[in-house]
């Protein structure tokens, strides 16, 4: 009675239906790779020279010298930390209204487009370009760096806040609306509890980014530890530069561990 049914084969359908196109793309990729590798010029002589020079260069980093330039290192770090904290706080405060306006499910169409515009513009330019721009406007020093990092924070935090609000559970929001809550009450009771844990995590992450970026904006004149680092390179004081790098690495690691801890705690 159990007549075996002729077994049907099954294979996952290919992503690209046409076999010609599928194989054609592979062939194109292979030809491109062959041409690209073939046209790459590698001067092994220069690589050899560079290798000996870089061992000397790296050797100059050791032992790191914390003491002889300690005052300027300390000053640079303090300036960087000041820039980091103020720009994160100011940037996040400014990004909250922009983020609310840029959430499609919250805002009115013209406001939405305007706020998305602000976010797009501030995300177009990396912090270093913003820093060059603000140094030109306001002169050298940490104020220019602070402004650059603040604007960068608005773009980053505003966009992620808007996206998190767009992803929230609409039923919870509807429920608070249905009791007759006002708009601000609705934000406080329905929206804020849903987005807060993630936003705290992202705020700490942004603090981390801003500290690292504060070292970069210093190189173009935005103050902070980057300026100190650049000076020590210019003076060929590689042992001091090594000390600065170690301090930066240490601070980033402390931030990394504490942010992981805080994020678990707010969930």
């Amino acid at each position, binding site marked *: 009675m159990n007549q075996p049914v002729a077994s049907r084969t099954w294979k996952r359908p290919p992503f690209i239906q046409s076999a010609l196109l599928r194989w054609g793309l592979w062939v194109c990729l292979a030809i491109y790779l062959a041409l690209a590798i073939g046209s790459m010029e590698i001067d092994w002589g220069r690589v050899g020279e560079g290798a000996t020079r870089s061992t000397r260069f790296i050797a100059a980093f050791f032992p790191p010298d914390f003491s002889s330039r300690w005052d300027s290192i300390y000053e640079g770090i303090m300036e960087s930390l000041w820039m980091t904290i103020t720009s994160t706080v100011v940037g996040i405060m400014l990004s909250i209204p922009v983020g609310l306006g840029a959430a499609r499910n919250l805002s009115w169409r013209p406001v939405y487009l305007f706020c998305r515009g602000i976010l797009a513009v501030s995300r177009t330019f990396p912090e270093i370009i913003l820093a060059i721009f603000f140094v030109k406007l306001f002169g050298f020093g940490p104020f220019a760096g602070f402004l650059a990092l603040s604007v960068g924070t608005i773009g980053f935090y505003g966009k992620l806040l808007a996206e998190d609000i767009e992803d929230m559970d609409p039923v919870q929001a*509807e429920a608070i609306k*249905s009791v007759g809550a006002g708009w601000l*009450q609705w934000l406080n009771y329905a929206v804020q509890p849903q987005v807060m844990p993630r936003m705290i995590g992202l705020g700490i992450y942004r603090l981390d980014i801003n500290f690292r970026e504060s070292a970069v904006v210093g190189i173009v004149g935005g103050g902070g530890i980057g300026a100190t680092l650049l000076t020590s390179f210019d003076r060929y004081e590689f042992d001091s530069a090594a000390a600065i790098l170690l301090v930066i690495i240490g601070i980033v690691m402390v931030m990394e561990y504490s942010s992981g801890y805080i994020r678990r705690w707010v969930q």
Partner: protein
Amino acid sequence: MLRIENLEKRYQTGDLALKSVNLEVPKGQVMALIGPSGAGKSTLIRCVNRLVEPTAGKVFLGDLELAHLGSSALRRARTRMGMIFQEYALVERLSVMENVLSGRLGYVGFWRSYLRKFPQSDIDEAFNLLQRVGLDHMADKRADELSGGQRQRVGICRALIQNPDLLLVDEPTASLDPKTSRQIMRLICELCEERQLAAIINIHDVLLAQMFTRRIVGLQLGAIVYDGPPDQLSPDVLTQIYGEEDWEATIEATKDLDEDEADVLAVAEKVIGRPGAPS
């Protein structure tokens, strides 16, 4: 209490969800709204408190016409209508107490609510209601720590602390097991009786509707096709509402239930405790 006149809703996609619905629910009446998925049950109750904007028609709550209210008048009107949701719709990261007190948001100012400084009378009432549904010991638990049945009880407290005239209940038992479903339905009906509330309960479980309400309205493709007492739901009527199917079993089951319900429930209460009583 609630009067709906020629209510119509056409969604932007062009779908006509409600076709000129007329309905009146007097004070103190609990009415079940049954019908297949997509019949427009949710749309109908959401058009009453305007979570969905009706396209035509009028809705009267007492003497107040709701369909054309401005935003602040609508807020005030919404305080008079409590809503209970299918998936409970509690704000999950707020505590049970905050969820209950959020029912008072229409009555307190922003700063008071922001600082969680609600009037003592509201807090007393919140504890009373939580005690009534047996959850007063859970006041400071976060809402996402509760089970489904417990969450729905908190949802009921949130609706009742509004001190509403009307309850809009959207599939209160759809995510609950059969026993909890009955407990929740009984609780809602008892509370409506105590407070003389009018209620519309959307429910797709015909049996539960027949067990707990005295009036059933059947909605099919956005139009009312049945309005009457539960015992007149014949196979023909159910076929008209839901389409062709063997309905005898459903109707038989209800008849048995009517006879046995008292015994079954008495036993159940002995085993699990009275649903309202604190455990």
